[in-house]
């Protein structure tokens, strides 16, 4: 049985349809990519899956985590699940950390929330978590504030927070888009390794096919709020594809080999 099962998910803002009948499933230990242009409804699908859409959105359909329906759950029940069974890494490491809170406190926050750790145990765990995501000098870094860290270091902190409670499902919403290309590769490798180590399932959202190819083997393509195609990465180079998918493939080729001018060579 699949771990995260989204069926006919529809999100409306007022009269505006932003996610239109999206269905897909994420298996145990699977890494699934979700790709689409900005505004295609990727991030909203992710937020719906974790129950964090803004108040004014109306959501229908079904989001099942490990057989348990999440849509329509109370905030209290969702708060228990978030961070513990399903967690999320955000796009902007610069803004996803509280600027006034020391790194150590933020690292240990999910463990304090879900495991009731004492503040002393939390401090020790924060150092352990900083170590796990390869942050240099963990003893020092847990006492630092977010602005004293680089973008890559901050994203490592974000990943450590999301994976602190060893969730079943991790949603990564463009986790490398805001980072330098060299740092991107490191963060992707870290994400891949940790997800595999913990046996978690990963839903990886991006608009960049090149990034996706190094992380997942299967992907779904979103366009204008609809799921237009579900395919294996390996099948992308040949065969019939949805025009949106072909456009993404061309864009990725153009970026990798500008001399080809993005034609189907």
């Amino acid at each position, binding site marked *: 049985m699949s771990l995260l099962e989204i069926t006919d998910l529809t999100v409306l803002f007022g009269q505006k349809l932003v996610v239109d009948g999206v269905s897909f499933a994420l298996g145990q230990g699977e890494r699934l990519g979700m790709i689409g242009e900005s505004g295609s409804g990727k991030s909203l699908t992710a937020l719906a899956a974790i129950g964090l859409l803004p*108040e004014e959105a109306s959501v229908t359909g079904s989001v099942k985590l490990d057989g348990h329906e999440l849509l329509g759950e109370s905030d209290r029940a969702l*708060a228990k699940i978030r961070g*513990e069974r399903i967690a999320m890494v955000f796009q902007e490491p610069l803004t*996803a950390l*509280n600027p006034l809170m020391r790194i150590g406190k933020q690292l240990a926050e999910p463990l304090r*929330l879900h495991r009731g750790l004492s503040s002393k145990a939390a401090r020790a765990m924060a150092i352990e978590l900083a170590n796990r995501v390869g942050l240099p000098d963990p003893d020092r870094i847990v006492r630092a504030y977010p602005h004293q860290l680089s973008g890559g270091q901050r994203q490592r902190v974000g990943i450590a927070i999301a994976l602190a409670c060893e969730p079943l499902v991790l949603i990564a919403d463009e986790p490398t888009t805001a980072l330098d290309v060299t740092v991107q590769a490191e963060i992707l490798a870290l994400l891949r390794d940790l997800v595999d180590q913990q046996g978690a399932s990963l839903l990886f959202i991006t608009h960049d096919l090149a990034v996706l190819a190094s992380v997942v083997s299967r992907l779904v393509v979103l366009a204008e709020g609809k799921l237009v195609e579900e395919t294996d990465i390996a099948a992308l180079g040949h065969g019939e594809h949805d025009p949106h998918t072909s456009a993404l493939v061309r864009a990725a080729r153009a970026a990798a080999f500008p001399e080809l001018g993005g034609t189907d060579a």
Partner: protein
Amino acid sequence: MTALKALLRRPTGVFGVAVVVGLVVFSLVSLVWTPFDPTATNPDQGWLLPFSGGHLLGTDRLGHDQFSQLLAGAREALLTAVLAMVIAAVVGIALALAATVTPRWIGATVVQLIDILIAFPVLLLAMILAAVYGGSTTTAVVAIGIGFGVNVARVARGEINAVRGTDYVLAAQACGANTGRIIRKHLLPNIAPTLIVQLSLTMALAVLAEAALTYLGYGTNPNTPSWGGMLAEQQAYLSARPLLVIWPGLAVVLTVLGLNLLGDALRVATDPRLRDAR
């Protein structure tokens, strides 16, 4: 670097701290000692110039020792500033939270309530309360606290809304923090710098408003020494004895200035991003 160190590294911070410390010291000293009884009248010793008859700042028409009155008045000013600030903080934060983190229809109602109350002048509110409950320091402080608390609420509401829309609040929710924890760990600490400035301004305005109310006869009882009371008493003789209004006036101005500068320095000192910047 700690917040206190950062505070004392700034001239404005040092000045603000000095004013507050001075106010506290004067108040405490006046409880146990003043050169003369600040409320004792002695018409034979009226209109004395500074440094005459042992009166450091001279005496007024009724022979009140001005220095003693100034010391005792600090008590009133400090009490007003602190109590009005506490009331304003409680009223302001409670209203701001009620306008933001509650279901939308409650929030909208509270926002309208804030808008209505803001249109109401603080001094007028204080005079109405004084008319109903009798003029006293307590009525003045409560009215000032509520009146400025509404202003604090409006600023705090905007700030809370801004913080609520940030990624780190979303991220905190995504790792399972409930509303109470979001308020305590993320909303309040992140609006604190703005709130500190607002509340220190409230303290300064409270001192000013209390002096004004007392001057108008709606505040502190004339028999209790206060800076506003001194100004009210002295203003009739402004052209004959200008020095007598200078002292309480200077005390009010210095206090207001000190509290404002302290608030500004505190804002910088409590924000780790700002205090690292030189």
